[in-house]
């Protein structure tokens, strides 16, 4: 028997084969079909797509052969890959190279015709070959077909490799994207921690300065003359201002981080407005500015202290930008869904381009009148954070020369009071670790009369669901510990929980595959943005109706 020689470029050839990542992969239709076509066209019982490795030849597709691979020593294909065209053995028993090949004896193979699988860079990775049990040959059409099918097999190998490379690249991209997102999150967090801790550090020495100045001003450490009193007054006033600025920064960072727990409940708006007006009246009186307040019976869902903070802020801005002797109007519009508080001044107004920047941090309006306007530029950013945590909106209407109206709207209580009470035993399990979102969502649900349970990790959520099957699970995909996918997969395997309606919150759009993995009972998907409260309420309503035995609309 004659074993085929090793090709000259064997190292490079094996490396090329390795790059295709094809050895020991499962069968694929594309290759099976090519082998079947070869067998049909050449009228042979056997057809193979083989790949010649270092010590073995392995079959990617096989017709009429029961084994998956053979030793390279006895492989006829090892001869085929030495040439650049068809390798044909018309009768193995008559061919001294193969007559004593054990394969020929054991399988009674007599005829072989193989076309090398030649890559574009000239490596013969293996063959497309046909075999028969009696001596014969191929006509020209069959030979051409065998060559063409071999080229098709190489094309398939290339396609497969490209797809694998693309998938790898996409995965790498996803990996790096999520790593970058993670790093950005960390940087943002570090920045916030830094601001918070620096602000805290600043307060300590400032407290001593203020205290000392207060003592000097009071005269307890010695009488001051008139000028000295005034100098100390300047210092004291400005240290108080600086303290206010630092407090604003701290407050804003906390709100922006969602680290402020709002106490949202049904409250009457009127006392909140009155308290705010009281706080601002003396400042307004200094410039003989009158504050008109419209009476209201509105009841809203809110944290009264924080809402008062918003109103004080808007009023103090209105006073600040009013002309001396002007009027500021505080009015309320309320309906069953929203309550809107409006603060109107008759000051210089705000140009359109400046309105956009208004609600960002550290932004101040350059008004045309000349009264000083000390402030941090954080007031409106703080108001925005508070209103948004109420699930509300804030905005401004203004034109140059015509004054400005700042407004914010939050949920009315009436919207929910008018609804028929829900069945008591249907509750919502909220799985989320985002404090701001928990506040917002649970405020909305509580207001709708739906009991809410909150779990801040996947494990806690599963435990809560096991304790009592909820009427609806609202799930944030990103959870510490077991994530959203893990939670759903565990719930699915639990016969009493696998039909629970599910509302999934995700940061980004989900693929169909991901959505399929997240199906529980009736399942809805929402993107985690700040602007979909209405969508959220609609989805919760529908899913809860289902839980109460209704149909899903």
């Amino acid at each position, binding site marked *: 028997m004659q074993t085929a020689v090793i090709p000259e470029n064997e190292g490079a050839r094996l490396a090329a084969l390795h790059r295709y990542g094809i050895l020991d992969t499962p069968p694929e239709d594309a290759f099976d079909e090519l082998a079947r076509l070869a067998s049909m066209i050449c009228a042979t019982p056997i057809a193979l797509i083989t790949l010649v490795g270092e010590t073995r030849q392995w079959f990617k597709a096989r017709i009429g052969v029961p084994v998956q691979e053979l030793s390279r020593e006895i492989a006829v294909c090892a001869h085929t890959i030495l040439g650049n065209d068809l390798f044909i053995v018309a009768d193995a028993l008559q061919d001294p190279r193969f007559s004593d090949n054990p394969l020929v004896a054991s399988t009674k193979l007599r005829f072989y015709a193989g076309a090398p699988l030649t890559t574009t860079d000239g490596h013969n990775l293996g063959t497309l070959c046909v075999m028969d049990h009696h001596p014969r040959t191929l006509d020209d059409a069959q030979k051409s077909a065998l060559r063409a099918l071999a080229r098709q097999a190489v094309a398939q190998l290339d396609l497969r490799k490209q797809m694998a490379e693309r998938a790898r690249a996409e995965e790498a991209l996803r990996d790096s994207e999520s790593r970058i997102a993670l790093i950005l999150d960390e940087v943002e967090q570090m920045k916030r921690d830094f601001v918070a801790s620096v602000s805290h550090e600043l307060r300590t020495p400032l407290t001593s300065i203020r205290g000392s100045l207060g003592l000097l001003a009071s005269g307890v450490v010695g009488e001051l003359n008139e000028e000295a009193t*005034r100098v100390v007054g300047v210092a004291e006033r400005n240290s108080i201002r600086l303290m206010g600025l630092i407090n604003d920064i701290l407050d804003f960072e906390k709100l922006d981080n969602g680290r402020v727990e709002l106490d949202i409940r049904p409250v009457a708006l009127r006392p909140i407005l009155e308290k705010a007006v009281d706080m601002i009246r003396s400042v307004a009186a200094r410039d003989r500015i009158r504050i008109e307040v419209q009476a209201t019976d509105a009841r809203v869902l809110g944290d009264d202290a924080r809402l008062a903070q918003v109103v004080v802020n808007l009023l103090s801005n209105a006073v600040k930008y009013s002309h001396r002797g002007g009027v500021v109007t505080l009015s309320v519009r309320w309906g069953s869904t929203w309550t809107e508080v409006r603060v109107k001044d008759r000051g210089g107004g705000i140009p359109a381009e400046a309105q956009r920047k208004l609600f960002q941090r550290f932004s101040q309006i350059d008004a045309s*009148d000349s009264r000083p306007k000390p402030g941090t530029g954080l007031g409106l950013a703080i108001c925005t954070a508070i209103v948004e945590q109420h699930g509300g909106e804030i905005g401004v209407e203004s034109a140059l020369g015509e004054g400005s109206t700042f407004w914010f709207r939050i949920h009315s209580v009436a919207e929910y009071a008018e609804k028929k009470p829900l069945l008591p035993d249907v509750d919502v399990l909220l799985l989320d670790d985002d404090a701001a979102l928990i506040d917002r969502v649970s405020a909305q649900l509580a207001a709708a009369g739906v009991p809410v349970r909150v779990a801040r990790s996947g494990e806690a959520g599963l435990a809560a669901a096991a304790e009592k099957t909820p009427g609806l699970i609202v799930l944030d995909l990103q959870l510490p510990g077991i994530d959203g996918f893990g939670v759903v997969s565990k719930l699915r395997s639990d016969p009493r929980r696998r039909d629970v309606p599910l509302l999934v919150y995700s940061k980004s759009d989900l693929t169909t595959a991901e959505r399929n993995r997240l199906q529980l009972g009736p399942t809805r998907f929402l993107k985690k943005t700040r602007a979909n409260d209405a969508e959220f309420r609609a989805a919760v309503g529908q899913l809860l109706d289902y839980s109460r035995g209704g149909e899903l609309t």
Partner: protein
Amino acid sequence: MKALVVDDEEDVRYVARLSLHRFGGMTVIEARNGEEGIAYAKKEQPDFILLDIMMPGKDGAATFHELRAGTDTAEIPIVFLTAKSMAEEAQRLIHLGAKGVLFKPFNPMTLASEITAILRP
């Protein structure tokens, strides 16, 4: 020496006046904004103007340009007073002919001598 201090913050004007008067023996006139500053500059003909850059309404730069353009105010030396973040703007104004730039917070003990040094030919 007669100084004109233009700043929208009363406290800053007060401290500047006190230090220019007590440490430099200067007579100090205060203006609360650009318009007032221009009017006083014409009327009082100060030896120099200490001008805040960031002010509501007519800001320091606009006031500066108007003073330079005015026949009876063009020659009055102008020293800008600014927060650090405005340093680039101040540099630009020096190129346009401002006499100097001082930064907030200034030292009330040395403000007068710093200005005197800037004004020295």
